[in-house]
């Protein structure tokens, strides 16, 4: 193994959150393959697939997820040793596959603030020239450094955008053609003819997916991505922050943190909420009392207090046991994991209460009575009758919590008990931007970047989940048929 690592010049680094994220991916893949064979489970997903809104937002979400997943494979590059045959050492700072893909974008730092697409710093500095010291805006080291004369910037940008656009169209066309070739239902047309007909908005008999929408959204995404890459290698698209780091790079790297907090926290919270909520509503009596008192008590302790206590404790532990962690990422990751856990522990009460109420309603339904009359066991009633009928509540609250948690992370970072300050996250970015907003002239791009990235992700997630909820709610299905 060690030889292999040496040969490729990198050693994988397994972080807890990475493992959990990939476990989640594996569970989803298994779930998909299980559902595929069962037409009755597939039926509501077909309804989702038919929705143009859902598929459009799914494409956007997928881009986020892919970036997040690429960012969840960590490795430590080998350090170049000066002498031959020496033991290979690996860097203390881990990199991810995403870093490798974007190249040295992360390392292209400037001295300080620079505006989006700027060629000069945002503030005047004393520059030593042949004519003596002048106070002026110095040129950036990377942003637009290839230009002889900053005045050419406009022309250069136009060219880059054009090239990027062209590349985007080509990439998109390639994806579309691959999809078309893989499809069976092409009605005897060549892949190209198929793509053209879909772009024109023709839909075929037997089409499930709204290809028209999917292709257009993919086209927009591909264009934006390729343009960003073209421009991004030459300029700082969204400027740089106080220490001169590329804001665009930070925002992209923050995607992983957002996804981790949004998904892992919910996963940790769900078992508490579902189990306790349903038990309280179903069994009533002293079980209900005990659970109610528990969450009422938990609710009356300020959540921030609990989180702060837990995070500070884990920070002390990390500091005292520095030897356990070989890299800074491992340290930051442990803190992230505990943040997820403690957020999960403090946020299950809301869903628990909802589920208790819903279960109270359901347990009086005739079909539960019928199940009792058959002598069906409590466990079976809970798993077969109650759980599937409260899943839409769970689904809705997962999504609402998702955006709420991403925002909570920002608030906690502000207080100083959020993710590790060295970690890229929208919360840390907003926290930094807080001071910049008070600066004169205002540095607005950090806030805007984190807002944009967060907004698009939360919006896409909300739109998608809305369609999922509607597709899974049989009451919405039958309403049309009953009236």
């Amino acid at each position, binding site marked *: 193994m060690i030889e292999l690592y040496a040969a490729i010049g990198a050693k994988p680094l397994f972080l807890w959150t990475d493992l959990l994220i990939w476990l989640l991916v594996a569970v989803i893949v298994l779930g998909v393959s299980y559902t595929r064979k069962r037409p009755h489970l597939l039926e509501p997903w077909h309804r989702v697939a038919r929705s143009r809104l859902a598929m459009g937002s799914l494409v956007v979400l997928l881009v986020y997820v892919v970036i997040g997943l690429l960012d969840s494979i960590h490795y430590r590059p080998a350090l170049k040793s000066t002498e031959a045959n020496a033991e290979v050492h690996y860097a203390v700072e881990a990199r991810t596959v995403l870093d490798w893909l974007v190249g040295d974008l992360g390392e292209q730092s400037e001295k300080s603030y620079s505006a989006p697409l700027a060629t000069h710093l945002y503030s005047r500095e004393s520059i030593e020239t042949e004519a003596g010291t002048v106070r002026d805006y110095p040129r950036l080291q990377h942003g637009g450094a290839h230009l002889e004369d900053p005045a050419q910037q406009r022309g250069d940008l136009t060219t880059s955008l054009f090239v990027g656009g062209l590349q985007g169209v080509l990439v998109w066309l390639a994806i579309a053609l691959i999809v078309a070739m893989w499809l069976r239902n092409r009605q005897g047309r060549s892949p190209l003819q198929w793509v053209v007909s879909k772009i024109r908005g023709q839909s075929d008999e037997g089409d499930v997916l709204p290809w028209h929408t999917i292709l257009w959204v993919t086209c927009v995404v591909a264009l934006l991505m390729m343009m960003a890459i073209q421009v991004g290698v030459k300029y700082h698209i969204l400027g740089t922050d106080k220490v001169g780091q590329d804001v665009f790079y930070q925002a992209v790297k923050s995607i992983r943190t957002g996804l981790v907090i949004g998904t892992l926290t919910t996963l940790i919270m769900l078992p508490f909420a579902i189990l306790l909520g349903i038990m309280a509503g179903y069994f009533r009596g002293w079980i209900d009392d005990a659970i109610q008192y528990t969450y009422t008590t938990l609710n009356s302790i300020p959540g921030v207090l609990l989180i702060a206590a837990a995070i500070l404790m884990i920070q002390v532990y990390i500091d005292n046991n520095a030897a356990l962690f070989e890299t800074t990422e491992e340290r930051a990751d442990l803190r992230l994991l505990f943040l997820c856990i403690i957020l999960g522990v403090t946020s299950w009460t809301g869903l628990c209460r909802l589920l208790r109420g819903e279960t109270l309603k359901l347990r009086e339904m005739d079909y539960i009575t*019928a*199940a009792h*009359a058959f*002598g069906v*066991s409590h466990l*079976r009633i809970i798993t*077969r009758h109650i759980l599937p009928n409260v899943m839409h509540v769970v689904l809705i609250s997962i999504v609402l919590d998702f955006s709420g948690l991403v925002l909570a992370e920002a608030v906690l970072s502000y207080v100083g008990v959020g993710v590790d300050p060295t970690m890229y996250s929208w919360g840390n970015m907003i926290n930094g931007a807080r001071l910049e907003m008070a600066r004169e002239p205002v540095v607005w791009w950090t806030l805007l970047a984190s807002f944009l990235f967060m907004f698009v992700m939360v919006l896409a997630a909300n739109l998608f989940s809305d369609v999922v909820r509607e597709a899974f709610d*049989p009451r919405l299905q*039958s309403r*049309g048929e009953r009236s």
Partner: protein
Amino acid sequence: MSKQSEDQLLQSDRDTVGSPLLSVQDLRIWLSSRQQTVRAVDGISLQIERGKTYALLGESGCGKSMTALSIMQLLPEVSLKRASGEILLEGESLLDCPEQQMRQVRGGRIAMIFQEPMTSLNPVMTVGEQVGEVLQQHKNLRGSEQRQQVITLLEDVGLPTPEQRIDAYPHQLSGGMKQRVMIAIALAGEPDLLIADEPTTALDVTIQAQILDLLRRLQQERGMAILLITHDLGVVAEMADHVGVMYAGQLVESASREQLFSTPGHPYTRRLFDALPDRSKRHQPLTVLHGMVPPLTAAFQGCRFESRCDQSWGLCRQLDPNWFAVSLGQQVRCHQLNPEIEPPNREMVTPEAEPQPLPVTDEGAVLLQLQGLKVHFPIRKGFFHRTVGEVKAVDGVDLSIRPGQTVALVGESGCGKTTVGKSILRLLETTAGSMQFAEKALNQLQGRALHQVRSQLQMIFQDPYASMNPRMMVGDIIGEGMDALGISRTPAEREQRIAELLEQVGLSPEVVKRYPHEFSGGQRQRIAIARALAVDPQLIVCDEPTSALDVSVQAQILNLLRKLQQQQNLSYLFITHNLSVVSWFAQEVAVMYLGRIVEYGTVEEVMCSPKHPYTQALLSAVPTVDTESQREVIRLQGDQGSPIDPPSGCPFHPRCPQAESRCSQQLPEQQWVSETHHATCLLLKG
């Protein structure tokens, strides 16, 4: 005055004298729902005269309520695709009326009352405020003047002690009183036309009789026209002057009440009458309409009723029948009655219902015996859940059911019938009394023994929409009991058994992989029956199994239940409030009032010579189709008492028209009228 305007005046004078109050011409309403277009109303024409009642009769989903809503211009604008035709209120078109003006019409000239009094009133406003709102809007009354007017209105609708009730909130009133308040709200604007959308469907028979009386009285006093929407032929017979029968978005017959009930023209109308259960049809299966109302999403070719009509021929499939008069005032949409069309020369076979013997019951054995059954629910309050009182839902019930027998349990809602049914299934714990089932003390069984007896006792519920888990497939729903009780052996046997059961209840075995929401109410009720049958029960508690269904579907389900009883020697405890179903279906009847059985006997005894004043009142309050017989209707005042604090002595005495002073002091005992007939009334003694 110019000549022209004089002409106009004359013209309008003539119009108001000769023309009806409301005239609907060729109304068509298309709604869009989930990429489909529903032709909810497809060419309705009707006229309503002042001071008359027009009844719109039809099964659910035929477009009755849509017609009413379009008259009020209350159709959901989002889904409304197209509305054409004419709705004229005193010659003024309502379809083109702008919303601003329409608000004056609604409540002011046309008012509406709805089916569900529980949800039609705002729970956070007092009764007085809700009535006053209308007065303010349409009469511009405020302050003490308004309050005075509200009290007068509440008095008009027969709300007892209106001076106090005016400040009551809806939850402090009973269902009947809420409906009275709804009527008061409707009357507040002094409308010319009152639209009543199933005004009594959610109410008990005795309350229904009160409300129908009230509507009739108000109509006479105020000369109001009523558009009555109902599915109940009995209510039509009591109320209507003119009747329109709707089927699949069209009127298929329009006639005066007398004509309709003496010579129904359209095959659909005739089938509706035939499907009504009553005692004279006891020995034969009910005539059923096969299938369902066709979906209104497609364009029709030919007669809409053709697929369910047993007298159709080729022409019916090709040509849409015309709307023509068969006699003065009676119009029909059917080829068969059209004098211009020669029906094919063939014998009109009226399917002769084969006589069906009543189930024979074994006189000796007793399957289930209840003695002094009491079920009390404690009312708990405070932090430590102290018991502060009891709801005496069932307070001493004796009952016995023999194998293969049907015993009906009759009573108004809240009298404890369902509680009896659920405690027999051991879904509720009994407080006192004994239950013997197949020689076992049912209420003492625990653990395994109880688990074993579960398969012999089953239940069918009222609401076919709530009785099935919407997320389980039909196959799993039926198989659930077999799995839980360990009856199914191998998966193949299980599958085969489910298929058998589905066939037995008249469904195709292919439906196992479908979800409940894909089925209609009647089909769901069949699935519920199959689910109960799956574990081979001996006794099935049927809790109002047909009261949520249309008449024609009710007949199908009742026939099915009786067929199964004959095949498998099942016993039924049939809980219902529908007395005509009882007289067709049951052998013995128990009448319940406030947790006690007040009368018990065979169907003949109880239905023909009721002894208890409550039974007499109940029987007389049922609206009947029979318009000839002038029956004396006993009107009960007020509502059933509360089971928390039942009246002293005989629980019925506060409402009893024959009550004497001793009734309020002495608890009556069972008085045997004959060997099989007893009633619990003090008056029978002396």
